[in-house]
Structure formats: structure tokens, C-alpha cells
């Protein structure tokens, strides 16, 4: 371990590097690019995955038809998806976001489908008795029951998407955190890598504590406090 000191930088060194990169380096530009890619892929994947997950959870025959393909989608290596899309759509922003969405959607579908399958028949009966319209049923019955699954998918989803974006940014892009990290890797600049990672994690923490938690508290306030 000849190089240990450089490989395990102190938190202070990382913070200093973070500051330098933010003030006079490309960090904010890179972070912006990556965040744009990650959030748009996140939004699309969550929406699409939730809708398809609900449909597959509800309709047995559709599930029987597609569950095998879902497994294929789940297990397709990122690199295969990236190659195909980069060749189809060129090395563009659209190809990157599409590739990320394709990678993430099966995960959301799987989680949401499991949630829909666990629904209580009781509330379905209630919906039938009240003749709820599809939209009211979604709002009053489906989504509240799905909440824990959607939260799980969202929490794990953002982190996964960011990791996939990193991979794709390395394979073909001209900026972003993944791209920069791969350059830093060539310098074996662990301090820089950790500075970038920290910057992203700060964003995620802000998202978690600034948005997700308050939202969660509001949405889940009905739950009795556990003993």
C-alpha cells in the first residue's frame, strides 16, 4: 500500500476540494448536467413504472404475458442498452436519458406490482360499493396503499439512477459528474472523486430532508405512532 495516504483523504481535505471545485472549478456545471439528466430520468421512470406496475399488478393476463420480459429488462446489462441506444439515437442527451429510463423502469414496475398485489380486497369492495370513478379510486384507494412502495422505489430509485447516469456519462458524454469522476479516476484523484460524490450526496440529502420527508410526514400523518 504505497499510496495509502492519497487514497484515504481526510474529510477536511474533501471539503476543501469541494469548495475549490465549486468556486473555481467545473463542479457546479457538471453537477447541473448530471442533475438535469438524473431528475428527468427519475421523473419519467417513476411515472411510467408506477403506471405499468399498477396495470401489471391488476391484470393477471397482462402480467403472465409480460413478467418474463420484465425479468429480461431487469437483467439486461446497462452496457447493452447503452450501445443499442447510442447507435440508434447517436451520442445525444436523449439517448442517455432514454437508456437510464429503460434501466430503471423495470425496477419501479417490479416494486409497484408487488405493492398492488398486496392490496386488501376489502378496499376493492368498498370502491365497488361506492362506484368510485377510476380517478377517485386511484386517489382514494390505490395511491395511499401504494405509498410505502412508491417511497421505497423513490428512495432507492434516485440513487440507482444517479449511478446509472454515471456509467453512461463515462461511455459517451461531454460532461457531468460521471464524466469528471472518470477523469479524476485517471489521476487516481480520490479526493476529487469524493468531493464530487459529496456534492451529489448533499443534493440527495437536501431532496430527502427538504422535500421527501416533509411530504412523507404529510402523506403519512394518518398512521398511528408506533408503540
Amino acid at each position: 500500500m504505497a499510496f495509502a495516504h492519497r487514497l484515504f483523504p481526510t474529510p477536511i481535505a474533501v471539503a476543501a476540494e469541494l469548495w475549490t471545485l465549486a468556486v473555481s472549478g467545473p463542479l457546479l456545471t457538471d453537477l447541473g448536467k448530471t442533475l438535469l439528466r438524473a431528475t428527468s430520468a427519475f421523473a419519467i421512470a417513476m411515472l411510467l413504472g408506477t403506471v405499468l406496475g399498477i396495470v401489471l399488478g391488476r391484470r393477471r393476463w397482462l402480467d403472465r404475458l409480460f413478467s418474463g420480459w420484465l425479468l429480461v429488462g431487469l437483467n439486461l446489462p446497462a452496457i447493452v442498452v447503452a450501445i443499442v441506444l447510442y447507435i440508434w439515437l447517436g451520442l445525444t442527451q436523449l439517448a442517455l436519458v432514454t437508456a437510464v429510463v429503460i434501466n430503471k423502469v423495470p425496477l419501479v414496475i417490479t416494486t409497484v406490482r408487488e405493492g398492488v398485489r398486496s392490496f386488501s380486497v376489502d378496499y376493492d369492495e368498498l370502491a365497488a360499493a361506492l362506484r368510485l370513478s377510476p380517478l377517485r379510486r386511484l386517489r382514494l384507494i390505490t395511491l395511499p396503499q401504494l405509498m410505502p412502495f412508491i417511497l421505497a422505489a423513490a428512495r432507492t430509485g434516485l440513487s440507482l439512477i444517479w449511478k446509472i447516469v454515471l456509467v453512461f456519462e463515462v461511455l459517451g458524454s461531454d460532461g457531468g459528474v460521471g464524466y469528471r469522476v472518470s477523469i479524476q479516476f485517471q489521476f487516481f484523484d480520490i479526493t476529487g472523486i469524493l468531493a464530487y460524490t459529496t456534492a451529489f450526496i448533499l443534493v440527495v440529502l437536501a431532496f430527502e430532508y427538504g422535500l421527501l420527508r416533509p411530504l412523507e410526514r404529510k402523506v403519512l400523518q394518518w398512521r398511528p405512532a408506533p408503540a
Partner: protein
Amino acid sequence: AETLVVGVQESGTVQWEIQTIKNLGLDTKHGLDLQIRPLADSRAGQIALQAGAVDVILSDFVWVSIQRSEGNMVTMVPHSLAVGGLMVPADSPIASVADLAGKTIAVSGSPVDKSWIILQAFYNQATSGTLSTDASARFGAPPLVNELLTTGGVDAALNFWQWNARAKVAGMTELLSVADMLETLGVAEQPPLLGWTFSDQIAATKTAAITAFLDASFEAKAVLRTDDTAWDKLTELMGASGDPALFTQLRDDYRAGIVSGYDPADTAAAEATFALLAQYGGAELVGDQTELAPGTFWEGYRK
């Protein structure tokens, strides 16, 4: 015999030399127990070297210089001069770099790829324009770049030599090699881009083994440069079985990049190239140092 673990990329052209060493028994001849650890890609090599899993890897001199300035004491002995070049389709309207304006170029690697920086410098000198704004560049992995060029997705491609060899066989032509560009930019002698890389510590503790390995390496190089029969056993490794045109192309391009001797004092070409890269690529490419770090080329060996 002393043991030396060399990490080599399984798909790399470096395998041809290693295989020749094995074929001719050059390792045992020099009293060396040569062990090969296959690696998936260059990042794996760097990790393996830092983790101490291998003693020697193949790397470029810019990386070695950066590591040295950062305090990672590694050093190298040249292995290859081969460089990439700018490829265009046979019937391309692009006749000189000036024609690149308004075109789409696929570049293997990233915006701080060394060849891309040199092409930008060359373009700047030829037209006094800025290539990155005049043309639109797309960055991707080498095979992806070749694919985009051959399918017409881009107008030109900047790629590594072994990929260009394949493109040539597929009917593309090399408009300009990186060596040509460097020459115009004032680096007359070709810099040794790739070299056998090891830590100072290994150099000190396993000097005999390193020396034996380098001897074997240079001997193999000599054979590969002159002896056609040595190549026959490499056809499959080159991925050229059943494709004599590709075989010949790869062999000839490889020969053009073989390093024939080594004098640690003669680092002018590398220094000039480094300065050029520092000027045009900036800190993103070379780090904070603008000059080749002293000791980048190992003083303990000469040929």
C-alpha cells in the same frame, strides 16, 4: 528465477508481445518467472497496480507523470510509439482539417483525450480557429466511434490505431495521423506514448526481474519487427483469423510503432508533447503540473 507479475489487458495489442515472449521462451531465457494477470480494462490495471496485485502494467506517460507529481512514485520504460489518427470515409469531402468546420466528429474517449487535444492544437495552428466550437464532437468508447463512422453517423472519427486499422480495412482512409500532427506542431521525434509502468519501490526491490523482463520485451520487439513467421502464431489473438487484409494492416501499423531502443536521458519528445498537452488540454488533462515530472522514465535501464 525471480517472479514478476505483469497485468495486461486481455484484449490489448500488448498481448501480441507477451505471447511472442512466451512462444519463444524469452522469459526463461532471461531467468525470469513471468506471470501474467489478465485485466479487463485500463482502470482495472491501475487498480491492480495500486492494490499491489501486479508489479507491472502498461500505461501512458502522461498518467505516470501525473502520478509522480501527485506523490505516487511510479515510473516507466517505453513500450510503443503507435498513435491514432483522424479517419474519414473514402469518398469524404473532407480533404484537410480545415474542412472539419461544421462537421460532426466522433472522438474515442473524452473531451480530454490526448489525440483530441492534439487535433485541436493542430487545427488551431492551421486555421487559427477553435475546433471544439467550429465542429461538433461526440465522445464515446472506441468501438462505438468506429461503428458511428462506418454507419455514416458522423463525418470523421478520431480513434486509436488498432481501431483505425479495422476502419482502413473497411474502406476508410486516414486523413492525418497524430504523429503527423505532432510533427507539424514541432515535435519531430515520436514520443513513446505507452510504457511498462511500475512503482519506484518495485524497481528498487525487484531490479533484476524488471531488467530481465525489459530485456525479454525488447528482444520480442526485435523479432516482431523483422520476423514474419513470429506473427503467424498471433493471428487469432489479433482477431484477424480469416481476414488476411486486416492481419496485414494490423501487423504493419504495429511495426510502425515499435520502440527499438531506450535512453532515459532522451525525453525531449515526451517533454515537448507534455508541454503541448498542458497548453491545450489544461489541468483536466495533465493536472496542476505543466512539465513532465522528473523520473517519469526509469533511469535504471537503457537499451
